């Protein structure tokens, strides 16, 4: 018989918590991160609405947030987290730092994807008199779509890694289960089973990403 200290309810709850945290912070992170990336690309020197100020401010902000170790970020923004969700602990509270952590990361990855768009396409857009918004919506994003999907996939997997640390504020989740029960309490069964679940998660997300990207790339 397997000797373990956790119940299947705890396990299911952890899975639910991970999905909860990842899905919401991914959504919010993308909502912030993608526009951030777009802003970086269009305001960068030589971009369609080149703007030294916006680029010069956004770029270091992203770097600053990306510099801070997640656990420090988590604590540093507690006042802000409380303002948003009313508490600094629990799954919902973890979503705030997770979002702040993942948004600039998504921003950077998506920026890299957008930079790969053939400059001739942007030229065509400009020749049609497209507004910056239209260039982004009808040209930049659709053309980068395949690469963008892969970037978001990479970010999602990074996010799953970060949720493991969100256990510090009692957010729970599979990664936390692995650390608190598996690692700290020498429960090999927990380690192995949580890692299997994580692998399934990651493999699923990656496969979905690959399929969508291949479709978008049409090859």
């Amino acid at each position, binding site marked *: 018989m397997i000797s373990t200290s956790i119940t299947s309810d705890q396990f299911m709850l952890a899975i639910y918590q991970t999905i909860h945290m990842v899905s919401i912070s991914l959504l919010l992170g993308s909502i912030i991160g993608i526009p951030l990336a777009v802003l970086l690309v269009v305001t960068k020197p030589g971009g369609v609405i080149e703007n030294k100020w916006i680029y010069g401010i956004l770029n270091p902000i992203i770097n600053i947030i990306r510099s801070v170790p997640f656990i420090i970020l988590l604590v540093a923004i507690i006042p802000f987290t409380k303002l948003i969700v009313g508490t600094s602990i629990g799954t919902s509270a973890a979503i705030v730092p997770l979002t702040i952590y993942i948004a600039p990361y998504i921003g950077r990855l998506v920026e890299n994807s957008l930079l790969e768009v053939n400059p001739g396409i942007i030229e065509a857009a400009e*020749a049609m008199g497209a507004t910056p918004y239209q260039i982004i919506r009808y*040209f930049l994003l659709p053309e980068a779509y395949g690469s963008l999907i892969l970037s978001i996939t990479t970010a999602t997997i990074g996010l799953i890694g970060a949720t493991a640390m969100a256990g510090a504020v009692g957010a729970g989740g599979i990664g936390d289960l692995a650390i608190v029960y598996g690692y700290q309490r020498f429960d090999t069964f927990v380690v192995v089973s949580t890692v299997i679940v994580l692998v399934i998660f990651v493999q699923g997300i990656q496969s979905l990403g690959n399929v969508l990207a291949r479709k978008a790339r*049409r090859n």
Partner: protein
Amino acid sequence: MIELKNITKVYKRKNTSITALKNVDLKIEKGEIFGVIGYSGAGKSTLIRLVNYLEKPTEGQVIIEGTDLSSYTTNQLREKKKDIGMIFQHFNLLESKTVFDNVALPLVLSKRKKQEINERVNELLSFVGLEDKAKNYPNELSGGQKQRVGIARALASNPSILLCDEATSALDPQTTDSILNLLKKINEEYNITMLIITHEMDVVKQICHKVAVMEKGEIIEQGPVIELFGNPQHPTTKSFVRTVIKNEIPNRVKQAIKTGENHRLLRLDFMNQSTSEPVINEMIESIGVKINILYANTTEIQEALLVTMIVQLEAEALQLDEAVRFLEKNHVVVKEVRSS
């Protein structure tokens, strides 16, 4: 009306800089089809990209319908560009969108109704012969098909200025013909101004009213097509004209040339009325020279005809002089040709 005033364009690199255009002056009247020819690298693409400010001039002004583009606000410039269609040398199609969606783009940008977009796009696609490729993606198209999508896209929003950078270079002669006829029709019906970059002299011949010849960033000659073709001045222009109006004696012909006092090798240029009169026949009958037509070429430049012949006349010296006088009286341009 498009006017380029004393344009210079310099591309800067780390240590060198390339002057792609040098003191270019150009004026294209409303409704005119203006061709630009020149060797590869002469600066033609650079020139056309200035007209919709894809490239800003290093010096000089681009004036469209009386307004210097540099005086426009960004928004005004955008509005202006909506009225200028452009066909790119490298197509620049969106790989992520179907043929239909690529062509629909300018209409979507102008927020046209869906119904209207559908109609217009289908009309254009059937025009360029790609109805059955509407749902395909660019990477499933042949080179010429891609170019036709680019053409349809440039025409979608009924622009009043059309810029074509090698718009038919990937097309077979029949498709080229049908596209050129379309352009001509549009030009006539809607009085669209067109600037056409090409290296195909046939294109110039078929639809351009005026033509400019570029070399090393400069316009070396310009004027109405018929004049430039009939009487090219600059060696480069001559060399371009020669590719449509051949006037060299083919090798095989050279072997048939007889030399001597009683023979004369002449180049005859027939223009306008002289082409339809039986000039040669009359010369034979009235003067009694023997003629051998070694080479003949007819070029149609829109409605005008230009016929060049290389002939060998055989008769007594006096008669030969008389024959030349006769031809010249009948509006034929006569030039002596050296046989070697």
